[in-house]
């Protein structure tokens, strides 16, 4: 089983988000970075499947040279190969990102072996565009389903079963013939922490680099939908970021109803007032 997992480097925000002075980005001077949470589970899943089934695992990211850190994190828990589509650090829109990833997958499959399974995160934690995996799947002509929290292979290894939560609760199952693409969500597994020997091994491994530079705007010719391609047009990039801002804080200080269990009476008075218990 050859598996590719696509990841994104994102800042590790905990408390308040602070923006740069020009309002174009998060101020990351005092923040660490991580693999976006859904994709951490994708990395763990790829490692687990290859441990069980044999084959090879590859991690790919599109990002600045610093994203090497996230590729090495993935290799530290057992991913074998890593590919960095290196940008100049500028933000790539989802159309351009998907186009570059699809092109890279095609060239890797031509040089090595085809990927039976490609994993994306359901959405990136930072930009939340909800579309890169689907655009790549359409460009490659492979089936994709998102929101996946459980993966298992059919007995003949010709298809993958994938399960996700149904709207309103419960579960729904999909069966996709391989090669296939899945968008996965946190909850798929509990990602392991890398061991020290794992980290040391990852440090020595090579990373395949492809220089991309700045985000292309306008004529792409990559990742274009088939309708657009048929019309001789390329995909239209976007949306175009103008700036970032923090949402307005509308709340004032909380009204303290009391301390400890003695506050129970005041709490139930409140429940009666707002109508969640009958008077």
């Amino acid at each position, binding site marked *: 089983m050859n598996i590719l997992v696509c990841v994104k480097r994102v800042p590790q*925000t*905990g*408390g308040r988000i602070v923006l740069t002075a020009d309002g174009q980005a*998060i101020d990351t001077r005092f923040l660490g970075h991580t693999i976006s*949470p859904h994709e951490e589970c994708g990395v763990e899943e790829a490692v687990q499947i290859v441990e069980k089934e044999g084959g090879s695992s590859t991690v790919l990211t599109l990002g600045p040279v610093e994203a090497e850190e996230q590729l090495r994190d993935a290799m530290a828990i057992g991913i074998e190969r890593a590919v960095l589509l290196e940008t100049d650090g500028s933000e790539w829109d989802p*159309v351009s990102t998907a186009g570059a990833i699809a092109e890279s997958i095609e060239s890797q499959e031509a040089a090595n072996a085809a990927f039976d399974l490609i994993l994306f995160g359901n*959405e990136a934690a*930072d930009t*939340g*565009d*909800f*579309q890169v995996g689907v655009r790549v799947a*359409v460009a490659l002509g492979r*089936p994709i*389903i*998102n*929101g996946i*929290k459980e993966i298992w292979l059919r007995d003949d290894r010709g298809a993958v079963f994938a399960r996700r*939560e149904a*709207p*309103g*609760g*419960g579960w*729904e199952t*999909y069966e996709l013939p391989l090669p296939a693409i899945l968008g996965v969500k*946190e*909850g798929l597994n*509990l990602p392991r922490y890398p061991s020290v020997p794992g980290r040391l091994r990852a440090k020595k491994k090579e990373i395949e680099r492809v220089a991309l530079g700045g985000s292309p705007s306008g004529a792409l010719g990559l990742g274009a*939908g088939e309708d*657009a391609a048929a019309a001789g047009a390329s995909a*239209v990039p*976007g*949306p*175009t*970021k*103008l*700036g*970032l*801002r*923090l*949402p307005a*804080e509308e*709340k004032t*200080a*909380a009204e*303290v*109803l*009391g*301390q*400890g*269990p*003695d*506050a*129970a009476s005041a*709490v*139930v008075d*409140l429940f009666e007032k*707002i109508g*969640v*218990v009958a008077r």
Partner: protein
Amino acid sequence: MSGPVLAFIEHAGGEPDRLSLEALALARGLAVSLAAPLEAIVLGSGAEAVAGRLGTFGAQAVHVAGAADFDAFAPAAWGAATRAAMESRQPAAVVAAGSERGNEVMAHVAARTGLPMAANVVSVSPGDGSGGAAGSWRLVRQRWAGSLLEDAALDAPTRLLTVAPHAVAIDPVASGAATPTILPFEPERDPADLIARVVKVEARTSSGVSLSDAKVVVGGGRGVGSAEGFGRLEELATALNGAVGGSRVVTSLGWRPHSDQIGQTGLRIAPDLYIACGISGAIQHIVGCKAAKQILAINTDPDSPIMAVADYAVIGDVATIVPAITAEIERRRGAP
């Protein structure tokens, strides 16, 4: 005049989905600004009945593909049906809910048409100021599940938008809502689009109200102390006919299943009352609960970040306060 604004409507049990009605409300505002007709798309068996209910929310016409092939969720096929409606109507915009399904269907529409898509939009101003649909539209969309807002421009022949959950209020027509015109259509079904399709559904095993529908949600964080500690939260939730959820910490620790997680990588809820027990209030959790009408925080630390979004607070240990509240509810119910 600009082409219509099309809204993609999800439905279950004969009723339009709540998040889809929020999307329809944003679409209606957009249609008014463009002086364009507001139309909807509904798929699957029972679509016509759902379509009839959309006049209340301003839809003038509804494109109905009632084939049973569309009953089971298949994002590429639902996307293809949407594209078929787009081809006949040349809409200025197509709007769907920023739900799991809405975002996925629109991503398929975007990928197959080569159009850009803006996900989880909270507001949009059409046009370049000339009053028409042309030019670059300005929009505000959520990043980090709403911890951050992005001002963006979107320029395309048809704008594809999904609407952030709980960011726009459902907006029924004040009076004299007309019954919408039903426009049946038969989109072609490409077998390739039906590969990724639900083949099996398992119903919810737990009884009681679901976390996404509950009017009262009792949420627990690290301060609950253990998986067993959630028993106290369950009792309070039962007394309030509510549901129990948790922060990312408690699902990562295995105290609760991941499906109970409230926050950026879990559910975004909008109950009448959210009771945050032993939750410090990391930004990733706040984005999942801030749409609650009222928030009561129970926490030992009066300076924890949850207090900044809470309306009410009780200071102290959840292990003693939560059972005391449950007991007080029972006592008043038992009183003659």
